[in-house]
C-alpha cells in the first residue's frame, strides 16, 4: 500500500474541503483557507500513513486553518463565535443553495462544526468532538441540534 499522487487527493476531496471552508469562514474567505489547507497538506503529505482517512486528515487541517483565519480577523484569542465579518457570504451566491448555506453559516460554531465535520466531511463523532474540544456525546447533540435548525429552514421554504 502506498500513497496515491496528491493530484488524486485534490480531485477527490477538493470540493468537500471547499464546502468545509465556506461553512466555517463564509464564501468570501473560503478560497484563502482552501489554499492554505491544501498547501499545508501537500507539505505534510509524504509523512501521511498510507491507508489513513484522508478526508478526516484534510478536515483537521482545514479546521485549524479556519480557526487561524478567524483569529487573524478578530485579533483576539479563539472566539466562541466567529465575528460577524467572517460570516458574511459573498455578494454573489457562489453556491447554488444560498438560503441553506446562509442558514449553515448562521448556526452557532459548535453546531456548525458538528454538522460540517460529521455530515459533509464524514468524520465519526469522536473525531468531531476532538476538533471542537467537546465530548463525543456533545458533538452528537450539537449535530442533531444543527440539523434540526436547518430542517426548520427547509420547512419554512417549502411551506
Amino acid at each position: 500500500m502506498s500513497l496515491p499522487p496528491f493530484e488524486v487527493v485534490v480531485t477527490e476531496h477538493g470540493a468537500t474541503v471547499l464546502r468545509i471552508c465556506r461553512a466555517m469562514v463564509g464564501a468570501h474567505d473560503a478560497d484563502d483557507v482552501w489554499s492554505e489547507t491544501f498547501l499545508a497538506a501537500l507539505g505534510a503529505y509524504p509523512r501521511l500513513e498510507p491507508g489513513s482517512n484522508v478526508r478526516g486528515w484534510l478536515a483537521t487541517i482545514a479546521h485549524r486553518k479556519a480557526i487561524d483565519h478567524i483569529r487573524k480577523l478578530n485579533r483576539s484569542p479563539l472566539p466562541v463565535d466567529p465575528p460577524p465579518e467572517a460570516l458574511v457570504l459573498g455578494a454573489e451566491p457562489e453556491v447554488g443553495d444560498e438560503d441553506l448555506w446562509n442558514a449553515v453559516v448562521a448556526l452557532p460554531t459548535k453546531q456548525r462544526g458538528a454538522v460540517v465535520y460529521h455530515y459533509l466531511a464524514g468524520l465519526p463523532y469522536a473525531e468531531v468532538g476532538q476538533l471542537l474540544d467537546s465530548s463525543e456525546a456533545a458533538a452528537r447533540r450539537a449535530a442533531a441540534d444543527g440539523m434540526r435548525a436547518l430542517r426548520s429552514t427547509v420547512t419554512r421554504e417549502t411551506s
Partner: protein
Amino acid sequence: MSFERDILTRLGRNSDQSVQALERLHARLVEAALGEDLLDVAYRIVDTPVGPLLVAATPAGVVRVAFAVQGHEAVLDDLARRVSPRVLRAPSRLDPAARQLDEYFSGRRHRFDLPLDLQLAQGFRRLVLARLADLRYGSTASYAAVAAALDNPKAVRAVGTACATNPVPVVVPCHRVVRSDGSAGGYAGGVEAKRALLALETAHRR
C-alpha cells in the same frame, strides 16, 4: 429523515461556480507549491498523432513520458511511489516539453533540447539510454549494434530490456532501435506507434 437527505444533497451539490472555483484554486495551489519548492512531480497530457502522451517532470527535468496503452493512472501511481507522492497536474510547468513534442510530431524538430531526470533508469539501462541519444534522426540501429557499441556484444537482451523500460520514450529515441532483420520489434507504446514514429522521421529526414 427525508429532510436530512434533502439538506445533505443540497449542501453536497457542486454548482458550476464551484467547479470553476476548484479549477482556479488548483492553479493557485500549483503556483504556491512551486513557490515553496513542494512540487516534486509536475505532469500534463500532450495530444499527439500517436495518442495522448503523459509527460512528467521533477525540478531536475523530464522524468517520465508514457503512452496511453501504458495506463496513465498506473504511471502516476508509480511516480508517486518511486519519486514522490507530491504529484500535481501542472501544465504550465511543462510548456517547453509540450512545445518541443508538437514540433517533433510536425517534423520540424529532430532533436530534443530538454533537461532530463533519468533517476528511473539505473546502471546498464542508463548507459544504454545515453547511447541512444547518439542515434541520428531518421536512422535505426539493431539491438545487437547498440550492445556492440557499448563494448558488450553479448548484452543484446539487456539492450532490449533497457529500451522496453525507457522511462522517457520519444524524447530518448528507443524507437530507433530495431531487430537485426529490420522489423520494428517491441515498443512500450505498441508496435504501431513505433512504426508511426519511424515513418514520421523517414518523411522528414534531411
